[in-house]
């Protein structure tokens, strides 16, 4: 990942972080993820549940023939469960796992907001308190149109054994070399 950042030429943390972000709403808060991590946005499809999974894993969906796991960010962030609405969407992101493998994963969010270009000056460091998310998963805080949006490090949030297993179990073996190739 650091290799990617260096490759884009962003040196300072702020200037490194200045990019286009896709913002979405989760509860009353607004979050942002780098747009380059986003594969596509789809409406909420029928999710097939998978047994013996942590509560934040909702299950899997069939996205144009590909089975990808779906994670409920509300559950992940220990927010209370929300009803599914018309605005509830799944953001399909492409992740780099700890093992270095690339995988696609769906994130269930309350609503997708917009794609914004956030300048370096609008980004501040993560404060050391007050958030429901552990600070290591946060890239920084961005001020967009007077509203503070939390920029999430999506790779770190969606990680760990479960995801590994999921991506391994879910992603067909044939696709693994291509992910590895992209990562490289």
């Amino acid at each position, binding site marked *: 990942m650091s290799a990617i950042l260096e490759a884009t030429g962003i040196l300072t943390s702020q200037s490194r972080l200045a990019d286009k972000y896709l913002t979405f709403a989760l509860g009353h808060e607004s979050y942002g993820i780098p*747009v*380059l991590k986003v594969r*596509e*946005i789809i*409406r909420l499809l029928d999710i097939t549940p998978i047994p013996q999974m942590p509560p934040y894993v909702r299950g899997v969906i069939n996205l144009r023939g590909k089975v990808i796991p779906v994670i409920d960010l509300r559950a992940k962030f220990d927010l209370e469960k929300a009803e599914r609405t*018309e605005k509830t*969407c799944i953001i399909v992101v492409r992740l780099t796992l700890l093992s270095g493998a690339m995988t696609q994963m769906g994130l269930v969010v309350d609503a*997708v907001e917009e*794609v914004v270009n956030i300048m370096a000056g609008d980004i501040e460091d993560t404060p050391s308190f007050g958030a429901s998310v552990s600070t290591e998963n946060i890239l920084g805080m961005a001020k967009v149109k007077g509203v503070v949006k939390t920029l999430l490090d999506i790779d770190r949030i969606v990680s760990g054994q479960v995801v590994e297993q999921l991506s391994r179990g879910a992603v067909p073996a044939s696709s693994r070399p291509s992910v590895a190739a992209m990562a490289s």
Partner: protein
Amino acid sequence: MNMDKLTVGQKIMAIVLLLAFFLGFTVILNFFFIGKISGAYSRVLESEVPKLAAMQSLTHQGANMERCLFNMLTIDNPARLNALAGKMAGIRSKANENLMEIEALARSEQEKNLFRKLMDSRQTYRAAYERVAIMIREKGRNEAMNHYGAVLRPAFDAYQACLEELVAQSQEQSKKQGADAASAGSIVRLMSLGFGFIGIVVGAGLALFIRRSITRSISHIAECLGVGAEQTASAAAQVSASSQAVAEGASQQAASLEETSSSLEEMASMVKRNMENAGRACDLARDTRSAGDVGARDMKEMGTAMDAIKQSSAEISKIIKTIDEIAFQTNILALNAAVEAARAGEAGMGFAVVADEVRNLAQRSALSARETAGKISQALDRSENGVQISQKVARSLDDIIAKARQVDELAAEVAAASREQAQGIEQINVAVSQMDKVTQSNASNAEETASASEELNSQTVEFKAMVAELGRLVNGIAIAGGNVKQEVKKRHSVVLAAHPKGNGSAQMKKNAEKLMAVPAGKNNGNNGNGNGKAANRVSGAAGAPLIGTAEKAEKLEEAIPMTRDFSDF
């Protein structure tokens, strides 16, 4: 004795009867004794006198006979003798007549015995002289003479003696009758005198007693009449006053009745107006009801129209939802396009701008759709509200219709009641006119009563005078007459003076009552005084009365027990 209880007629009758009893008794006595006297007289006249006469004649015939016999004895001539014989026969027949007469008149046993004795002696005498006559013819005169002296003479004497005895008896009887008559006459005289005197004395005493009792009663009555006249006078004055008051009341009543009549007319017109108004109200209520019916129908139509609006609104909101959906999908597509453009880097810059525009459009259309949806839902809410309101209005209209029906009925009832009221007022009008008549007749009657009471008052004055006259007639003094008369006159004039100018105010009436009440109270309170005065007056005027002055006063007081009789007034 309860003489007081008898009427005057009875008392007088008692006197008359008593006197008649005495008179009758005397008459009966007289009748009896005079009858007795006249009987004795007639007995003497009819029986004793003819008897005596017959006896006289008989004596005379005896003497004749004796003379004839003597002649026969002395005369020889046969012719003379025959004549003498005839004469003697005549004498004998006459004596026989006399004897028969005496026999017929003889009544007492003693007389009859004497008569029988006479007849026997006569028989003896007759036989003797016939013997003598025969002796003269056959034996000669001397022998006859001897026989005459021996037999005939004693026989004749006996006969004569018997006759004398009878005469004496008859005389005795006559004398006795005379004595009886004389004694009866003296008894009659004495008794007539005695009974007459007793009758006069008793009659006079009773007359005195009755006169006293009658006088007493009449005095009492006269006194009472005097007091009654006084009372009547005061009552007449009261009646006059009250009749005046009644007349004034009647006139007031007449005025009130006139007012009542006019009020009734007003009322009648008001009731008529009420009736008309009620009829109009009835019509209006009917109109209201029909209008309410139309309103209710319109409201139903409006409800269906609202339902239609609701339906079309629901359809519109479905369409809006679809538009919103499309906008949302467009937004997502634009976002994906933006992501793709970002991934394309420099080459995707223009595409990113387009995607942004598309996304803006999508958002605007979503916003518009949302706004439209809000509007639609607002319209729906409003139409729902309208439906509810229209339902309320329908209910209100139903209420209004029901109320209008009630109003209709009530108005009809009011109209009927007004009609009945009008009839009632008509009846009241009739009654009032009758009352008016009655009041007028009352007024005239009251006036008549007033004049009658005045008349009564004057009559009372005359009555007083009469009572005084009566008192004078009875006792020779006037009983409380003049005084009362003056008093009554005075009072009456006061009452009359108080009234004519008065307007029938309560004050006037009160005054009149007070005037009337005060003298009555005086009378009540001064009973004792009045008594004393009466007594004084009586004692002062004593002179004419039959009885003594003091006694009279006492009697009067006794006779006029004022305290007893007046305590009731």
